[in-house]
């Protein structure tokens, strides 16, 4: 299977502080890779580098076989991102926001694309609503629509279901699973929701202090660490000092 994301020994230093210490991983086409780790482990920094928002101190990132640093615009056209920490302009209607981002991503057939996403994400009745007046569940689905507006080959998700109620959270997870199967996209999912990661991800990277401390399928990791679920594995790795520091 073709690798859509290839990360080769990337490091990121902020002055003397090493935020990411030379990590290497790949994400295959049609794969969801989970990125787990406690706060400050380097997940957001890694995603920032994949988005071209942060320049790695060393190492290389390839997206769809293109070097990110040399093909920033071309790569940004084929990736997208969703995070609860960024928002769409609050004063614009949902439709205006989707229209604006369609233009920024030079989407063809804008009307059809918005209609398709509205139906899939059940936001049709929200299109004329002011974005800032939506509930967090509605905002999340609208942000997801924005993140899919350009039919990305690679989707980066930073806690995509944080602060959502179980029903909306389940809807989003189901949607992502189906969308990935249908479009064969690669997804990198950073999440603190272990059930979500277990359900969605084929394999998982565990990060701590800027390093990948373990990786494998959720089942393999559970077995390897002698635990009953991924959350226990996460806690073991997060709390273990001697092993990984």
């Amino acid at each position, binding site marked *: 299977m073709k690798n859509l994301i290839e990360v080769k020994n990337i490091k990121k230093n902020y002055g003397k502080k090493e935020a990411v210490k030379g990590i290497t991983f790949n994400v295959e086409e049609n794969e969801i890779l989970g990125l787990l780790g406690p706060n400050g482990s380097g997940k957001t920094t890694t995603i920032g580098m994949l988005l*071209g*928002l942060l320049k790695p101190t060393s190492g290389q990132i390839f997206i769809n076989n293109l070097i990110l640093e040399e093909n920033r615009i071309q790569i940004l056209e084929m*990736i997208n991102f969703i995070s609860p*920490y960024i928002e769409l302009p609050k004063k614009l209607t949902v439709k205006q926001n989707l229209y*604006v981002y369609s233009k920024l991503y030079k989407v063809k057939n804008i009307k059809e694309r918005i209609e398709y996403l509205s139906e899939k994400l059940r936001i049709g009745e929200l299109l004329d609503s002011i974005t800032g007046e939506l509930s967090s569940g509605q905002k999340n689905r609208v942000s997801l629509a924005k993140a899919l507006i350009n039919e990305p080959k690679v989707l980066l998700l930073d806690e995509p279901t944080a602060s959502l109620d179980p029903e909306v959270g389940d809807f989003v997870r189901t949607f992502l699973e189906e969308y990935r199967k249908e479009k064969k996209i690669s997804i990198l999912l950073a999440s603190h929701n272990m059930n979500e990661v277990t359900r969605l991800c084929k394999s998982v990277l565990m990060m701590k202090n800027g390093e990948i401390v373990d990786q494998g399928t959720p089942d393999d990791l559970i077995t390897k660490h002698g635990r009953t679920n991924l959350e226990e594995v996460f806690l073991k790795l997060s709390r273990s000092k001697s092993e990984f520091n």
Partner: protein
Amino acid sequence: MSLIRIYGLFLRHFYLITRSFPRILDLVYWPTIQITLWGFISNFFANHTTYYNNAVGVILTCAILYDFLFRTSIGFNMLFLEEIWSRNFTNLFIAPMRIGEILTSLVITALIRSLIGLVPAILLTSPLFGISILDLGIFLFLLFLSLYIFGITLGILVSSGLLRFGPSFENIAWSTMFLLAPFGCIYYPIETLPEVFQKIAYMLPLVYIFEEARNILINQAVDIENIYYAFMWNALYFSISIFLFYYSFNAAKNKGTLINMGE
């Protein structure tokens, strides 16, 4: 450069302005108040001093020109700050937009914002004070263009600071124009300034623009040299601002400011 993307970013701000009556009111309100106030002051001075040679409207014309500069510069900064305040900054910088496209879009939008505010105010000057800024003739366009470039230059410089240092740089955005105003010789000739300040003033395009506006209105003559120097200084500062913006963008990518941008 993609015109579609430039138009897309313009639309984002166009929707924002046109959706909100208070925003439009805010754009029109301050220039109108400012110009009305300076209109009365202008009338008073024109009738009580000999310097202006009864050229009614010299001060008012300069006030309009300065307000255009102020609105352009602040307008550009506002567009940039809007992205930070709305936490849309990351979305914008992960969109496949070239820096040149972002700047071009903001430059066009800033002009439209300024004109929305200024045109009604300028139209008011004729019935209220019997003054028309069009008395500057064809050179009015050159003076406005020069001010527009300088306003945009200041906007880009401040935005570079926002990129490099984050939202904490916001206060500078509001104060830049006030810092430069005394050196701009907006309402008085350059000889009014102490010699040291004059040297600084001569390194700004503003002094040439306002000296020329007064020259045209009072002496009914045109000194092309003033316009030429204004454009030369503008070209220099504009180039520096573009360089600094790219530099700040790269510095922000090293420092991580683009990820954490927000209030």
